[in-house]
């Protein structure tokens, strides 16, 4: 393979690795670092990467090395940390021992094809997660069972409807409303005595913990633009959930004239 072709291949692979990382919830710093590590491992030192929360700009070229420029726009996706771990492992391997470019390409392909958990497992996990948090915030055994159902139904909604068809704002607004409706229903049917614990168990499943944590870490690393974008994302989701919750509680108050709790 000619030098120019090889350089091009390496840069494309570095971009692909960066894209997988960024899509699946890695920090900006890690994306840049991985792109450089891959480029350097194949003797490409003029590469320059500029990474934002939803895009990568990669250029290279000087007197000896090939001119190359590519911009990659990256849609916000649902994160999968396994992929981050795998790409990280791959970049360590590339550094430690020269892998052939073909191997790297195959590995990246494989990582991208890594299966998600089956939806039923995710729904059960959400149920368990919700009910555990319900216990932590003052729930009793009946609330625990209700919370399991609320969490599972919420995850079903997020998987089948919310994340697929709605914008983020509408998705979490309706999610907050759904949790509130179900919790009020359980409370009124005397299935669970602690309305607040059931509510919190449901809400916590939508809380943007990843966006929030990554935002802070990006800002601490000096990546202010990406940090602010991610923070805005987190705050927006927080507000949408709160509005969804508030809307249903207010509606309930209007309809019945009664006050909950």
């Amino acid at each position, binding site marked *: 393979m000619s030098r120019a072709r090889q350089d091009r291949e390496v840069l494309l692979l570095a971009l692909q690795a960066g894209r997988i990382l960024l899509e699946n919830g890695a920090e900006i710093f890690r994306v840049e670092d991985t792109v450089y590590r891959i480029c350097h491992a194949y003797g490409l030192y003029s590469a320059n990467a500029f990474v934002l929360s939803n895009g990568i700009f990669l250029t290279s070229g000087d007197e000896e090395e090939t001119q190359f420029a590519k911009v990659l726009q990256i849609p916000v996706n649902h*994160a999968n940390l396994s992929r981050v*771990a795998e790409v990280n492992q791959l970049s360590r391997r590339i550094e430690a021992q020269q892998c052939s470019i073909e191997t790297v390409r195959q590995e990246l392909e494989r990582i991208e094809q890594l299966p998600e*958990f089956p939806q039923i497992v*995710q729904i059960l996990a959400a149920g368990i997660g919700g009910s555990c948090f319900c216990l*932590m915030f003052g729930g009793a055994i009946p609330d625990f069972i209700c919370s399991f159902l609320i969490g599972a139904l919420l995850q079903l909604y997020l998987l089948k409807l919310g994340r697929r068809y709605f914008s983020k704002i509408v998705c979490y607004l309706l999610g907050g409303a759904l949790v509130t409706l179900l919790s009020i229903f359980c409370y009124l049917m005397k299935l669970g005595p602690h309305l607040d614990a059931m509510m919190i168990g449901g*809400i916590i499943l939508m809380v943007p913990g990843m966006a929030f944590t990554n935002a802070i870490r990006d800002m601490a690393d000096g990546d202010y633009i990406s940090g602010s974008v991610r923070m805005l994302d987190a705050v927006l989701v927080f507000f949408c959930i709160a509005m969804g919750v*508030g809307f249903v509680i207010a509606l309930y108050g209007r309809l019945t004239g009664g006050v909950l709790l």
Partner: protein
Amino acid sequence: MNLLIQTLAAACGTVAFSLLFGAPKRYYAYCALIGGSGWLLYLVAAPLSSPPTATFLATVLVILMSRWFAVRKRCPVTIFLISGIIPLVPGAGIYWAAYYAVTNQLSTALDRGFGALKISVAIVLGIVFVFELPQKLFRVGLKKEEHL
């Protein structure tokens, strides 16, 4: 007894979140340990101080442990950190703020909202400070050739 149940619930909840975030299965035990310890420290510290202080201490513990395991297991710290910190994120604060706001108890709503903000700031401080610590500290006890 209550403390034990709550810690177990936190550990179990953390694992459920790691699954939802798609973390690799081999790390679930560590995620559970981190989430459980963080929440236990919060529970012990909160009555002695205030929720923001307790959150700060718990965040520091969660991140120290996350970095410790990340170096030893050679994987991105994000995997442990994100699920471990979820119990501390003020999800309850959002609910109470929204609840009091629409039931016309505005000053209580403001109190709760501000409380949630304080807890968020405590988490921010914890994250920022512990990530300033040099990586070397977390390699104590590792053999030379394992440094990477």
